[in-house]
């Protein structure tokens, strides 16, 4: 059963103007889109991506007024993301949740990778995520503390896999960032955690052949790939009051693949 992002099942839903505000990077498709959908159950959600998608447009169209916001911007452009955060804070008056979801992946053995691919992965997966957290934590401090940040990591940060060395490096760095930032901000009740999904059915595993998918499933104790909901449930939990004493953790959602 899905865990409600707002944990308000037994209570009347607050009016939109009283709902907490969640920022989700890369919300137009895949995991980001599913996160936007889940967090709209009880949050006002602001997301951005380079381009829109029909699915996101439909979600925004169905959302109550002033509860969903999308902007087109380049995640790696610090002035653009700063402007986005300022806009959200000015419009809705607070920021309670940041999910650093946007990321890029390029496969290939390191000696054959182009500099541009390496640079893009580090810029988008690491630098841009750190900068977004920088901007959001300032706002969280201004509202008197309190808040939750979840960085989307990867099982590749926990175990080595051939052909993803740079991607693994960016995600492992995010895990280190998560732990140290949790120590920095704990006294202000700003919690920082990471979720490390295993392979789940998405565009990012579409390139894997049936044999490769079958091999991953064989090595997974729970004998299946993850679903997007498996991952969204844990992110939602970490941002909820039910996780109020959890910070600095990276939780693998991988069916036991890395245990």
């Amino acid at each position, binding site marked *: 059963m899905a865990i409600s992002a707002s944990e308000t099942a037994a209570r009347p839903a607050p009016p939109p103007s009283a709902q907490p505000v969640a920022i989700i990077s890369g919300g137009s498709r895949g995991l980001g889109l599913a996160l936007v959908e889940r967090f709209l159950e009880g949050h006002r959600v602001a997301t951005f991506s380079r381009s829109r998608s029909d699915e996101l447009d439909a979600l925004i169209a169905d959302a109550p007024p002033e509860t969903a916001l999308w902007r087109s911007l380049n995640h790696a452009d610090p002035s653009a993301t700063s402007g986005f955060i*300022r806009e959200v804070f000015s419009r809705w008056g607070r920021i309670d949740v940041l999910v650093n979801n946007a990321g890029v992946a390029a496969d290939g053995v390191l000696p054959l990778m182009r500099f541009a691919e390496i640079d893009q992965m580090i810029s988008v997966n690491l630098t841009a995520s750190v900068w977004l957290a920088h901007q959001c*934590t*300032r*706002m969280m*401090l*201004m509202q008197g503390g309190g808040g939750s940040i979840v960085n989307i990591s990867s099982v590749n940060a926990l175990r080595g896999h051939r052909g993803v060395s740079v991607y693994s490096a960016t995600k492992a760095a995010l895990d280190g960032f998560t732990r140290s930032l949790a120590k*920095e*901000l704990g*006294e*202000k009740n700003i919690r920082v955690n990471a979720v490390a999904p295993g392979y789940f059915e998405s565009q990012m595993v579409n390139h894997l052949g049936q044999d490769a998918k079958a091999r991953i499933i064989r090595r997974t104790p729970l004998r299946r790939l993850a679903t997007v909901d498996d991952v969204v449930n844990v992110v939602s939990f970490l941002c909820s009051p039910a996780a109020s004493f959890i910070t600095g953790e990276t939780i693998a959602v991988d069916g036991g693949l890395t245990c």
Partner: protein
Amino acid sequence: MLETAPDQVDLEKLVHSELRRLLVERDRPPGVIEASSRLGLDLGFESLDLALLVARLEVATGLDPFAEDVAITSIRTVGDVVSAYRHMGGPPADGGYEDEDLLAVQRRTRARGIQASGDGSG
């Protein structure tokens, strides 16, 4: 945010006002805030207090001198803070700084950078 760019007097008043606000929020006597007051030793601020100060000043002025030019870790006194905001547009055209306080801050920033790069730890 202010409608127009704050002048030098406005900036100093704004910085002092935000510092007093922080002191009240921390249940400390507002007392006298002077340019020479040390943020840590005299006023008792910790790094997250300074982060909050910078966030509030950015919202109020649209300025953040610590994003690129000046390391917040090099700021020691109230005067250092005011100088950083006054000069965030960069040094005067003649290449020199009018304010010795900011010059000292810039020197400390550079010194920290050299120390960090030669540290080799971590």
